[in-house]
């Protein structure tokens, strides 16, 4: 999936993956897609819940070589 920006949050522990995601999203325009790479397992449920509560859309997520990848469309 084509992303407007890629955020590397690998190796970061909670809450940093979401703190950084929020910061990156603030710099994007509505409709843009942010790709996030994280290794903290807690990020999976938290990113999905945060996306919901903040009005964005989690377009896709998958796991590759123990790296969690998320694509979020800015609302």
């Amino acid at each position, binding site marked *: 999936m084509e992303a407007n920006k890629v955020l590397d949050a690998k190796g970061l*522990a*909670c*809450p*940093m993956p*979401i*703190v950084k995601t*929020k910061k990156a999203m603030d710099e994007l325009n509505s409709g843009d897609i942010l790709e996030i790479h994280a290794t903290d*397992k*807690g990020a999976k*449920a*938290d990113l999905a*819940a*945060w996306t919901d*509560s*903040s009005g964005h859309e989690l377009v896709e997520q998958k796991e590759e070589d123990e790296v969690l990848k998320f694509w979020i469309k800015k609302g």
Partner: protein
Amino acid sequence: MPKAMSAQEIARKVIDKEELFILDVRNQKEFADWKIEGDSVEVINVPYFDLLDGVESIMDKLPNENVLVVCAKEGSSMMVADMLEETGMTGVSYLKGGMKAWSEYLEPVKVGDTSDGGELYQFVRLGKGCLSYMVISDGEAMVIDSNRMIQPYLDFAKEKNAKIVQVADTHLHADHISGGRALREETGAQYWLPPKDATEVHFDYNALEDGTEITVGTTKVGAQAVYSPGHTIGSTSFIIDSKYLLTGDILFVESIGRPDLAGLAEDWVGDLRDTLYSRYKELSEDLEVLPAHFANMSEVQNDGKVSAPLGELYKVNNGLNVEDEGEFRKMVTENLPPQPNAYQEIRQVNMGKLTPEEEEKREMEIGPNRCAVS
């Protein structure tokens, strides 16, 4: 700087019924699954990711001081605790090690003395509702239904100048990883397991069968096994010093064991009925029932102990008072609560078929035990 509050400090507060206000910042799903509970505990849930812009929006829901912030591991609670302190709030703390530490903390509570000068302790795992036991007599100790974290038992035995020589599991557990084998490796103790639960295990063990007598110390504080199937096909209870009945996951203080975690509920419901309505009925009513779990804080007494006389349970425990067998069958096979987290994998680990990393084991054990019928 917010204060780091240990799981042990929180356990003391919960047991002593000291007031505690908790702001739980995990996501709603995790919070709904399990949380810190107690008569004196007030808890609200606001996920940390809804507080990234500040905590102003929730200040009216919080007391003016003394708020404990908790999250899954620790990081997010530290962040939110910092934010609370920046508003001028005093007495802000966070749970050191997060809910993981809470899930793993064991509080030793003395159950009583045995007739020959020995002692019996119950280790209360408040975060998960698991209860394990240590019998101490004449410099020797036995651990029953050990948790995965074996250090608390090793430390406690050392403090009591006792050597752990016997370890047993009343059944193959499905809700937590047994520390039985690890304790054996560490101490050289004998490890007992009911053979009917151990048909697929990948390790040696001593067969715990009906009538097996295990001695602790040079004196006669023995554990006498009573075959009591129903939760699993091998489930075996211990009678210690003709005074205490360790029921495993067959009988709890406010409920009874569920028969569906290791096979088909339909197959074992008859055994469960038989154990509860016949086998246990033949035992002395004065025996103090000591289960392997509790589900509600109401089962925890003022001193932190979870127990009740067997005769009392025959009066008040609903699971022991269903006259009609068909109705009983229905109760324990229908409308069962969700199974414990990762229970299939946990059983495989306890059989020695899987050997996950420590971190994976912790993840598997997250959440309540859910071994009771309701």
